[in-house]
C-alpha cells in the first residue's frame, strides 16, 4: 500500500492506465494506424531509432536550457527594476505585455534570417516564450512584502542593500521558483517552435521530418521524448526549490513528513 502512495508511482500508474486505454481504443474502434499508431508500434520505432532520437535530444535540450537561463538572467533583474521603480514600470511593463501578444511562431522565421540555422535562433524563441511569466511573477514576489516589515527594517536602520538581500529577495524566491517551473515548460515549446521554422537538428526537426514521411510512430516517439524532457526539467527545478525553500508553505508538508 505504501508504494502506491509514493509520489513517483502514482503518475506512472496513471500513464500505464492511459496507454492501456489508448491500446484498447485502437482495437475497439478499429482506428487505422495512419491516424493513431498502436502503443507497441511506437515502442518498436522508439527502440529502433533510439540512438538518433537521443542525439537529436541534445540540441533541443541545449536550446531549452539556454532560453530558460536567459529568461532568468534577464527576467529577474528586469522584474526587480520594475518592482522598485514606478518610472521604469510605466515605460517597460506595457511594452512587455504588448510583446507577448506578438505570435512567436510568426516571428521565428525572422530569427533564422538574422541568425542562421544554428542554436541561437532557437534559444531566442525559447527565451521569448519563457521570460514573460518570470517577469510577471517576480514583480509580484518583490512587491508582496508587508509594509510593516519594511517599516520594521527601517527602524532597524537597515541599508537598502541589506533590506534587499535579507528580506526582499528571500521573500520573492517562492514566486521566482513558481515562475521558473512555468518558464521551463514554455522554453521547451519555444525550442521546438524554433526547430520547426529553421533547423536541421533537434527533436522539433525529427517531428517535422516524421510528419512529412507520415511516420506516425516516430512522431509519437518524438512527442514522448519532448514530454519526458519537460517533466525532467520541471522536476529538477522542483527539487531545487524544495532544497532551497524548505520553509515555504508549499514545502512544509514534505518536511513535516520527513521528520
Amino acid at each position, binding site marked *: 500500500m505504501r508504494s502506491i502512495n509514493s509520489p513517483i508511482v502514482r503518475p506512472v500508474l496513471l500513464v500505464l492506465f492511459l496507454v492501456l486505454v489508448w491500446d484498447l481504443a485502437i482495437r475497439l474502434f478499429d482506428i487505422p494506424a495512419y491516424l493513431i499508431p498502436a502503443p507497441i508500434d511506437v515502442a518498436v520505432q522508439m527502440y529502433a531509432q533510439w540512438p538518433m532520437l537521443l542525439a537529436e535530444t541534445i540540441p533541443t535540450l541545449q536550446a531549452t536550457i539556454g532560453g530558460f537561463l536567459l529568461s532568468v538572467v534577464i527576467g529577474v533583474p528586469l522584474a526587480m527594476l520594475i518592482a522598485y521603480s514606478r518610472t521604469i514600470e510605466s515605460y517597460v511593463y506595457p511594452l512587455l505585455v504588448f510583446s507577448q501578444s506578438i505570435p512567436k511562431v510568426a516571428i521565428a522565421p525572422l530569427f533564422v534570417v538574422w541568425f542562421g540555422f544554428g542554436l541561437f535562433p532557437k534559444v531566442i524563441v525559447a527565451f521569448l516564450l519563457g521570460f514573460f511569466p518570470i517577469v510577471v511573477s517576480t514583480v509580484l514576489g518583490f512587491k508582496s512584502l*508587508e509594509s*510593516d*516589515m519594511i*517599516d*520594521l*527594517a*527601517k*527602524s*532597524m*536602520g*537597515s541599508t537598502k542593500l*541589506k533590506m534587499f538581500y*535579507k*528580506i526582499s529577495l*528571500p*521573500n520573492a524566491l517562492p514566486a521566482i521558483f513558481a515562475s521558473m517551473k512555468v518558464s521551463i515548460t514554455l522554453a521547451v515549446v519555444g525550442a521546438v517552435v524554433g526547430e520547426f521554422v529553421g533547423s536541421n537538428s533537434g527533436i522539433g526537426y525529427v517531428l517535422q521530418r516524421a510528419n512529412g514521411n507520415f511516420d506516425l510512430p516516430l512522431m509519437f516517439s518524438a512527442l514522448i521524448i519532448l514530454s519526458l524532457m519537460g517533466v525532467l526539467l520541471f522536476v529538477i527545478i522542483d527539487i531545487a526549490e524544495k532544497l532551497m*525553500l524548505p*520553509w*515555504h*508553505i508549499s514545502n*512544509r508538508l514534505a518536511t513535516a513528513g520527513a521528520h
Partner: protein
Amino acid sequence: MRSLRASEEMMTNRFPKQVDRSTLIQLNGVTKKFGSFEALKPIDLSIREGEFVSVVGPSGCGKSTLLKLVAGLAPISDGELLLAGKKISGPQTDVGIVFQSSVLLAWRNIIDNILLQAEMRNMNKAEARSRAEALIAMAGLQGFEKKYPWQLSGGMQQRASICRALLHDPQVLLMDEPFGALDAMTREKMNVELQRIWLESRKTVLLITHSIPEAVYLSDRVVVMSERPGSIAAIYDIDLPRPRDLSVMASTQFASYTKTIRQHFYAQGSLDDH
C-alpha cells in the same frame, strides 16, 4: 461617591505641564494628512523618559498613524515632533517596534528572526546571541529557538517579535496593539510580563491598545483619542501602586478608571472588553 471624586481628580490632570525637564517625546500641534484627508487633528502630547503611556480610541481614529509619526516612519504634516529635544526626520533607530501581527520572516527560525535586529545594526554577534537567548528565556520560548514561525502559536510568535524589539535595548518601545490577536488569558500573562520588563528596564513605552483594562493596568497615563479625525479627547493619570498584581483589576479604583475611560466610547461602542 468615591469614584466620582476620583474622576474629578483625574480630569484636573487632563493637560499635563507642557515643559518637563525629562520630557523625551514631545508633540506640539502635530497633524497628519493623507492627501486632503485629515487623519490627525493637532496633537499636543509629551511623554516623559521612562513613562508608560497607552493610547486608546475607536478604530480608524489614527492611533497607528500617531505611532508611525513618533517612529519617524511617516512625515508629520504640520507642527513639531521632538525626540530628546531633536526634531524627528526619518526613521528612528533607537526604538523597538512591535506591530499587531508579528511580522516574522518565514525563512528564519525564531532565534535568527530575533537576531535580524543585530544583523541590521551590525551588533557584536556573540553578545547579541547571548542577549537573544536571555530574552527567549524571559519570554518562555526556550526549546523553540530553532523552530520556524509557522510552527509556533500566534501568542508565541508575538512574544518572539517582542524579543526582537528588545534585543538592542532601545530607549523607546513602540507597540501597536501587540496583544490584539491573543486570547484573554495569554494576554493577561503578557501584560504581567510586559510590566515586569518595564519595571526592570524603565524604557519609555507607547502602547496602542483596544483594551481599556490593559491600558489602565499597564500605564502611567492613558491617552483617549476621539473619532475621526483623530484628536486627544482626554488624558488620565493612573495612580495605582507598582508593581501591579493582576488582582488590582478587581479593585474599585481600577473599576472607576475603566468606567471613566469607557464613558468616552458609549456612543461608539467600538472598544473591546478585555
